């Protein structure tokens, strides 16, 4: 299964980065086709441009700087998102990856006379989210839980109609012991390579 991993965290020493390493290692041992987009390493600019706003129903051919990302998104059957939850959602860099790459003719089309967009990512049948949260689940829900809703609803409906989302989260990170965090990290390889 073609698997696309998208990683977002500025700090190499972070728990999120440790998780990303575990997940990528596990996926590599499966021998399945794998692509990794490390948004920080690529210094991905998340700010939708004036040109992109004016041409929001334009064609991906007009976005040569996003070609690698667009190609990977269309290629993927499984999408793995790895990021820290900040302010109850995806960090700006990853939010901007959605804003810019999940564009017209790639993630959706707006047929003439239609009032609703139609999803175009039939290729994506699985989404896995690996995220670390400083807050407890209760605080995240109180803050609106926007990151989870975005993946489960807004993005999933653009993918295959049977697309399933799996969450691999650790909450309340600042109050957990090293042993608890290690146990969470160690649980990840099995989730991504059950036979490994």
């Amino acid at each position, binding site marked *: 299964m073609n698997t696309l991993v998208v990683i977002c*965290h500025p700090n*190499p020493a972070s728990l999120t980065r440790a998780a990303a390493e575990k997940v990528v290692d596990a996926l590599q041992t499966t021998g399945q086709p794998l692509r990794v987009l490390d948004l920080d390493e690529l210094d991905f600019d998340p700010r939708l441009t004036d040109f992109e706003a004016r041409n929001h129903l334009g064609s991906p051919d007009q976005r040569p700087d996003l070609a690698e990302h667009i190609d990977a998104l269309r290629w993927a059957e499984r999408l793995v998102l790895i990021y820290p939850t900040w*302010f109850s959602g995806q960090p700006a860099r990853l939010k*901007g990856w959605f804003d810019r790459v999940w564009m017209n003719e790639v993630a959706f089309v*707006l047929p003439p006379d239609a009032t609703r967009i139609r999803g175009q990512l039939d290729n994506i049948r699985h989404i896995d989210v690996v995220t670390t949260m400083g807050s*407890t689940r209760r605080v995240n829900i109180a803050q609106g839980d926007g990151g989870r809703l975005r993946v489960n609803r*807004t993005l999933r409906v653009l993918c295959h109609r049977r697309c399933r989302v799996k969450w691999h989260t650790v909450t309340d990170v*600042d109050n957990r012991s090293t042993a608890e965090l290690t146990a969470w990290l160690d649980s990840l390889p099995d989730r991504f390579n059950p036979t490994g």
Partner: protein
Amino acid sequence: MNCLVVHAHPNPDSFNHAVRSVVLDTLTGLGHSVDLIDLYAIDYQPCMTEHEHVGYLDLVESGPDEVVAAHMDLITSAEALIFIYPTWWSGLPAILKGWLERTMLPGFAFALADPGDSTKALKVRPRLTNINRLIGITSYGSGRLEVRLLGDGGRRTVTRAVRALCGARTKTTWLPFYRLDGSTAEQRQQFLATVAERLTSALPSAPSTAGPAT
């Protein structure tokens, strides 16, 4: 009243900019003092850096980036905080989401309780008690029903996550414009009038004319 307007839209010819003009004119007309942060115009860098993440908990003391520090000063002197932006994928544009991440720092926008505190659900304590009015103005591509079904994460970010940083009595005003792509010039004009009207009632001109506080 001191009003801080935070605006995020890359296209100066957009409806979003028209909304911003009405907001600025209305507030100035009411006699308020207005500061504007136009994130695209200042080429704002929204990604938290490695340095900022490593030192996150002490960043306020150790000295944040100078742009961040200047924005913190503007927030500190504001009584009304107004966000104007387009909603993309059920949320704030990245440039604005990142502004919250880099600016709303612990020790400034909120305080963290001691790790030993048992009341974990309340461990984030608000610090922006100077903000007594929070206003969100946004446009959506989708209609109201669809926005609701998708969870309206952007609205939640403003009216819950940012609201939680403000005082207990802070009032929230939410001004959505749905289905922008299919809208008529008349509907857009009507919305601009609504924005002016709602701002005028939310932020009355001077305490002496506003009557006793209720």
